[in-house]
């Protein structure tokens, strides 16, 4: 007999329903109601209607919650979507179906029974969801643990496989560490790496690639959207150059997949890295696109049970994969709408702040993804601004927020003076950002910046007309 949600007290059956975490402050850990029945069968009969009745209370409380939402003072606004995103509820639902005994918990590698077949079917469905978004063949998608692994597999895998062709690799100074640190490692293995400079807006121009490419260049690795400044590289044009030279082209698309259109049939990209958690999927899952025609081959990093055609061994995490597939499917449906909202948000913020003195955009508005907006407020240190904006979760290129005490290498590569790099803030918006959160932020930023300038000796000197570059700092 299924006694789910039921418990017995004083010989009478009661219903007990767990309260969602976000309502526990109001409702406690669970809601209880008596069925009034001593007989289990009769109690089971009443159970569903009592559960629905209790669930109404969740709704009532959620709604009264949302009517308070315009009052932001006690909440923290999340403007750090470029760092990670919350998982979409629709994704969570799908993932939950792949874990328990009732769900598709099987090993997708098990060929001898229905548990394995079911898991395999879901994994392949998810693979199609991913390949649909990117317009490629599902067989060109390999599951990994995330974009960092994809970058490692792509760069090391291609460099090692094709080393007889040459040992020169081109990348840029503003790549993610998952690419830069792999390149540093390859330098120790006697590969020669060219680190391209971006132009002043942060773009790696096709011309820069053309100038650097050589006969022995085996790989070019560049990002699609820069994670700090949102600038978009022209991977279509760069792909023409690499293809002509017979060089493999790897693109880190962790920030761009599902946010701007990617059509791999039209692009001369050979390898592309993806992450789920940047697009409302779970952490710990990603993928690598490996072109079939012309075929690109990689030396694997992991060896084992031969999963993913031997390129990436390891039991496939069905729930993670299904989560990524669902996230990519939703992204495909919502991309245009999401993009439009983000463009609005960026305009609201920039229009609200652009008339302040000594405010700079890092990157450019014209050529960038609107979900990432990086600004510098001169004479105000970034970490102190973040601290002043205590109800807004943002990140900074300031040294003080990093363990290294160095300001952002990306902003320095743009040619920004160190003090502007120290004064930078990245706002990144996403699917769950509300318009009023952005509107409220405008005034909060204005107030905090002017408060901090009030106590800044640099602002004082600037106001006095002193040229800070001419001072000999101790």
């Amino acid at each position, binding site marked *: 007999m299924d006694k789910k949600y039921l418990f017995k007290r004083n010989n009478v059956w009661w219903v007990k329903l767990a309260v969602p975490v976000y309502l526990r402050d109001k409702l406690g850990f669970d809601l209880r109601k008596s069925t009034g029945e001593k007989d289990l069968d009769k109690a089971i009969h009443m159970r569903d209607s009592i559960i629905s009745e209790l669930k109404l209370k969740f709704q009532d409380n959620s709604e009264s919650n949302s009517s308070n939402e315009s009052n932001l003072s006690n909440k923290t606004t999340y403007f750090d979507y470029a760092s990670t995103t919350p998982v979409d509820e629709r994704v969570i639902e799908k993932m939950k179906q792949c874990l328990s005994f009732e769900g598709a918990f099987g090993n997708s590698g098990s060929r001898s029974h229905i548990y394995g077949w079911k898991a395999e079917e879901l994994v392949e469905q998810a693979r199609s969801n991913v390949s649909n978004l990117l317009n490629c063949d599902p067989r060109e998608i390999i599951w990994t643990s995330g974009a960092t692994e994809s970058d490692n597999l792509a760069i090391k895998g291609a460099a090692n496989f094709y080393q007889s062709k040459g040992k020169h690799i081109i990348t840029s100074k503003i790549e993610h560490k998952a690419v830069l640190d792999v390149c540093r490692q390859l330098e120790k293995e006697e590969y020669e790496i060219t680190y391209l400079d971006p132009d002043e807006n942060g773009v790696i121009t096709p011309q820069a690639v053309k100038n650097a490419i050589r006969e022995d260049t085996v790989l070019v690795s560049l990002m699609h959207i820069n994670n700090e400044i949102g600038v978009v590289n022209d991977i279509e044009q760069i792909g023409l150059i690499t293809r002509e030279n017979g060089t493999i082209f790897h693109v880190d698309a962790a920030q761009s997949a599902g946010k701007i259109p990617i059509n791999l049939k039209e692009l001369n990209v050979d390898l592309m890295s993806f992450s789920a958690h940047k697009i409302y999927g779970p952490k710990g899952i990603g993928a690598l696109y490996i072109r079939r025609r012309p075929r690109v081959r990689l030396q694997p990093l992991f060896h084992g049970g031969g999963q993913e055609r031997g390129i990436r061994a390891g039991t496939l995490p069905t729930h993670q994969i299904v989560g990524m597939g669902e996230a990519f499917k939703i992204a495909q449906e919502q991309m245009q709408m999401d993009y439009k909202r983000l463009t609005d948000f960026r305009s609201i913020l920039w229009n609200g702040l652009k008339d302040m003195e000594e405010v700079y955009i890092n990157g450019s508005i014209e050529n960038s993804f609107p979900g990432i907006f990086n600004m510098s407020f001169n004479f105000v240190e970034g970490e102190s601004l973040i601290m002043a904006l205590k109800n807004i979760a943002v990140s900074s290129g300031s040294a003080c927020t990093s363990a290294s005490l160095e300001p952002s290498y990306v902003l320095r590569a743009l040619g920004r003076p160190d003090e502007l790099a120290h004064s930078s803030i990245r706002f990144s918006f996403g699917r769950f950002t509300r318009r009023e959160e952005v509107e409220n932020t405008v005034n909060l930023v204005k107030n905090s910046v002017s408060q901090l300038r009030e*106590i*800044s000796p640099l602002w004082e000197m600037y106001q006095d007309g002193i040229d800070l570059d001419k001072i000999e700092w101790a």
Partner: protein
Amino acid sequence: MAYSQKVVDKFEETLKNPKGASVGRWKPGDKDYHRVGTGIVGAPACGDVMKLQIKCENIDGDNRIVDARFKTYGCGSAIASSGQLIDMLKGKTLEEAQNISNQEIVDILELPAIKIHCSVLAEEAIHRAIDDFKSLRNND
């Protein structure tokens, strides 16, 4: 990084009421400017600049710091460290002020290891301000 409540409180108090927290300056031409010593330490490129001013009076033969003002560009703990230093300075003789160590600021604000340089900056600032004040005396 999570700061101690003390850093957060000091920082917010400074932002909310800068005058009350001794944010400000004396500038050339002010009435008592000849009794003010100024120390500026740090550099914009390093993300920290602290400007400290002390106003001294000769009381019973000792030069005492009767008032102090600061402005700081830097992270939250640099701003909190400056404010803390100001609290510690007022009323002290120059000799006593010279002996203030950065460790006292670290202890009071419970600064994390990576932020100890903020307290060092504060210690350097008071040394510079005292030197500046003494050089003014010598020029008299």
